C-alpha cells in the first residue's frame, strides 16, 4: 500500500516552491524505495505555512510546513511517511488552530480534495445538490437561494435570489449563466483558490443555476493573469463532461448544460458586469448604460445571470444543507459565511472563511498576528482598490456589509490589505487615482479625465504647492467623480482618496 502525500498545486503555493518540493519528494522516495502516491491538492489558504505538505496516516492527515525542497531528506529521515516528529510538524492538519475556528462551507473541499477528480468530489459530498436540484422546479431552487440570504460575493452584494428570479421570469429560448472570474482587486485571491482547489463546486453551482432558470450555456470569464486557474478549470470541465454532468444529458436528466472558459485580457474594468458582457462578446470592455439589466438583456441581448465565482460555488452547499442552515450563519442582513482574504503586510496571511460579524481586530491580530515587518498596523484597505482606508481606531468594526458601510467603507470581495506605519497615505491616494486613470474604459468624462486631474492635484499637494486650495480642489473633484461617473470605477475610486484625506490628513503636505 503506498502512502498518499498531498503537495499543493495552487499557484500561491507554487510561488513559494511547492513544485520543487513535490519533485524532491518523488526523487527521495525513489532513492529510498518508498512507495508513495502524490496528489496535487489546492491550498487550504494558510499561506504562511505554504508549501504545506500533508501525509495520510491511520490517524488522519499529518501536516508539515512551510517545507522547502532542502527539508525533504530530513522529513524522510524523521519518518514523516508515518507522521513522525519533525520541527516542521503541526500534527493533524484539521487541528491547526488557524483552521480550527473557521467555518468552511464554500471552501470545505478546497485544499482537501484532488481538484481533478470527479470521484473525489463526489466522495466529499459533491453533486448531491445537483441531484436535489433536478428533483425541484426552477421556482423552488430560486426560492431556496432567496431564503438563504445569499448576496453577490463579487462586491456589489445584490441578493442572488432576486437576480435569478428575474432571469427565471423571462420568456426567451436562450438564456445564459455567466461567471465573473475577473478577480482584479488587489488583496483578493478567493476566486483563484477556489477555481484551482475545487473547480467542480463552481461548475456544479453553474449547472444548478442553469437548471433553475432554464439556461443551457454557461461562460466563465476568467482573467488572463490566472493561467493556473485556467488549466484547473479546463481539466475539471473535461472531467465533468466525461462523467456526464455537463453536456446534452446532465446527470441523466435529459437536460442540457454546456460550459466554457473565456479569457479576459488584462482590463480591470471587465470585473464590472456590463463591461464583462461586452468583453465576452469580443468587444472593448466598455460599460453599458443600465437599464436594461443584464438579467433582462445581457449576453448577446439575452437574459443572463452574472454571478461571482464565490456566489456560484456557494450554491451547492446551500441546496445540499438547506437555505436555513446557510442563513443561520452571519449577522443582520449579511447571511452565511465570507471567505476573507488577509493580504499585504501581514504575518499570517491567507484565506479565512467565517460567518459575517467577526471584527477586523480579530482578523488582523488573532488570525494575522500583526504585520510581517513587526511594525504597528497603521491602516487597512478593505474591498480592493476602490475600498476605503480604515484607521486603527475603527478596527473593532464588524466585517459585514452594513457595519462597514456604516463607517463609510465597503466590504467588496472580502480582501483586506494591511499596511504598517511606514505607509505614506498621500502616495496611496495618488495611486488610487493613477490606477483609475490606467483602467478607465474612457466612456464617461468624470472617470476618464477626473482620475488624471486627480493624480495631478495630489502631486501638487505632495510638492507643497498651494496645499490648502489643492486639498479643497481634490475634495470637489472626488465629489464630482462619485456623483457623475457611469459605473463603480470612477464612482468609487475616490473612496480611498476621501478616506485617506479624512483619517490621515497629516500626510497631505509637502515632503521634506
Amino acid at each position: 500500500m503506498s502512502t498518499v502525500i498531498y503537495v499543493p498545486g495552487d499557484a500561491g503555493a507554487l510561488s513559494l516552491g511547492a513544485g520543487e518540493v513535490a519533485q524532491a519528494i518523488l526523487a527521495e522516495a525513489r532513492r529510498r524505495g518508498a512507495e508513495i502516491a502524490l496528489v496535487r491538492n489546492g491550498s487550504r489558504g494558510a499561506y504562511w505555512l505554504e508549501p504545506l505538505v500533508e501525509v495520510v496516516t491511520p490517524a488522519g492527515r499529518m501536516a508539515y510546513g512551510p517545507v522547502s525542497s532542502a527539508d525533504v531528506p530530513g522529513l524522510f529521515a524523521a519518518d514523516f511517511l508515518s507522521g513522525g516528529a519533525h520541527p516542521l510538524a503541526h500534527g493533524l492538519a484539521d487541528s491547526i488552530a488557524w483552521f480550527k475556528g473557521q467555518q468552511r462551507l464554500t471552501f470545505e473541499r478546497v485544499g482537501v480534495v484532488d481538484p481533478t477528480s470527479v470521484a473525489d468530489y463526489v466522495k466529499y459530498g459533491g453533486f448531491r445538490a445537483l441531484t436535489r436540484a433536478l428533483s425541484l422546479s426552477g421556482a423552488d431552487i430560486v426560492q431556496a437561494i432567496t431564503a438563504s440570504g445569499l448576496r453577490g460575493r463579487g462586491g456589489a452584494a445584490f441578493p442572488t435570489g432576486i437576480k435569478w428570479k428575474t432571469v427565471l421570469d423571462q420568456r426567451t429560448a436562450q438564456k445564459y449563466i455567466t461567471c465573473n472570474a475577473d478577480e482584479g482587486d488587489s488583496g483578493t485571491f478567493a476566486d483563484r483558490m477556489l477555481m484551482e482547489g475545487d473547480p467542480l463546486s463552481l461548475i456544479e453551482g453553474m449547472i444548478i443555476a442553469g437548471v433553475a432558470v432554464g439556461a443551457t450555456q454557461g461562460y466563465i470569464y476568467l482573467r488572463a493573469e490566472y493561467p493556473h486557474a485556467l488549466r484547473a478549470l479546463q481539466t475539471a470541465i473535461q472531467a465533468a463532461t466525461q462523467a456526464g454532468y455537463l453536456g446534452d444529458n446532465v446527470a441523466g436528466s435529459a437536460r442540457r448544460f454546456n460550459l466554457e472558459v473565456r479569457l479576459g485580457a488584462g482590463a480591470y474594468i471587465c470585473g464590472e458586469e456590463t463591461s464583462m458582457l461586452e468583453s465576452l462578446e469580443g468587444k472593448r470592455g466598455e460599460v453599458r448604460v443600465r437599464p436594461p439589466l443584464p438579467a433582462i438583456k445581457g449576453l448577446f441581448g439575452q437574459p443572463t445571470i452574472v454571478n461571482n465565482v464565490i456566489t456560484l460555488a456557494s450554491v451547492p452547499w446551500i441546496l445540499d444543507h438547506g437555505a436555513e442552515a446557510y442563513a443561520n450563519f452571519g449577522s443582520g442582513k449579511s447571511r452565511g459565511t465570507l471567505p476573507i482574504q488577509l493580504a499585504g503586510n501581514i504575518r499570517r496571511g491567507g484565506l479565512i472563511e467565517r460567518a459575517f460579524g467577526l471584527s477586523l481586530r480579530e482578523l488582523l491580530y488573532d488570525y494575522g498576528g500583526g504585520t510581517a515587518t513587526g511594525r504597528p498596523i497603521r491602516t487597512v484597505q478593505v474591498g480592493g482598490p476602490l475600498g476605503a482606508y480604515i484607521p486603527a481606531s475603527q478596527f473593532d468594526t464588524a466585517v459585514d456589509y452594513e457595519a462597514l458601510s456604516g463607517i463609510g467603507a465597503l466590504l467588496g470581495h472580502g480582501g483586506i490589505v494591511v499596511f504598517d506605519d511606514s505607509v505614506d497615505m498621500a502616495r496611496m491616494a495618488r495611486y488610487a487615482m493613477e490606477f483609475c486613470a490606467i483602467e478607465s474604459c474612457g466612456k464617461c468624462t468624470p472617470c476618464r479625465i477626473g482620475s488624471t486631474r486627480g493624480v495631478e492635484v495630489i502631486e501638487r499637494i505632495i510638492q507643497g504647492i498651494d496645499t490648502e486650495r489643492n486639498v479643497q480642489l481634490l475634495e470637489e473633484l472626488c465629489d464630482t467623480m462619485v456623483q457623475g461617473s457611469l459605473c463603480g470605477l470612477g464612482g468609487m475610486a475616490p473612496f480611498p482618496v476621501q478616506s485617506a484625506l479624512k483619517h490621515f490628513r497629516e500626510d497631505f503636505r509637502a515632503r521634506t
Partner: protein
Amino acid sequence: MQTRAVPEKDIVRRIVTERRGRPGPLLEILHAIQGELGYIPGGAVPQVAEGLNLSRAEVHGVITFYHYFRRSPPGTHTVQLCQAESCQAMGAEALAEHARARLGIDFHETTANGRFSLEPIYCLGNCACSPALMIDGQLHGRVTPERFDALIAAGEKGT
C-alpha cells in the same frame, strides 16, 4: 530572428477560419494569435477585420483597449511585476526600482539583447505572498531583490 516555417499571415488566416463561427470570437482570435506569434502584428488587423466582417478600426480598438495584447514582439522572457496595493505594502516600488536598474529598462520596454520584457501588472492574486511577480507564466511570491537577481540570472543562461 529565426524565420518561421509557416508565414505569419497563413497562421492568422488559419486561426480566423477556425474560430470565426463561434459566438463573439474576436477576443479568442486575438488570444490565439498572440499565443502563437507572441504578439499581434499590424498586418493581422486587416486580415482579422475582413474575416469577421468588422472594420479595421474596430479590431484596432479592441487590441488597444486591453493591456494584455502586445503590438510588438516580446523579449524571450516576460517579467510581470505586480504594482498593486498589497505588493506595495511589501515593498513593490523598491523592487520595481531594483528591476529597472538590474535590467536597464523601464516598464513596457525590452532589453537590447531581446532577452527580457518588463511589464507592470495589477494583481496576480498572490496577495498573501507579496511582493509577487510572474515570469513566463510562473508565479513567484515574497520576492526579494536577491531572488529577483537569481531568477534573471536563470533566464540569462537558459533559452
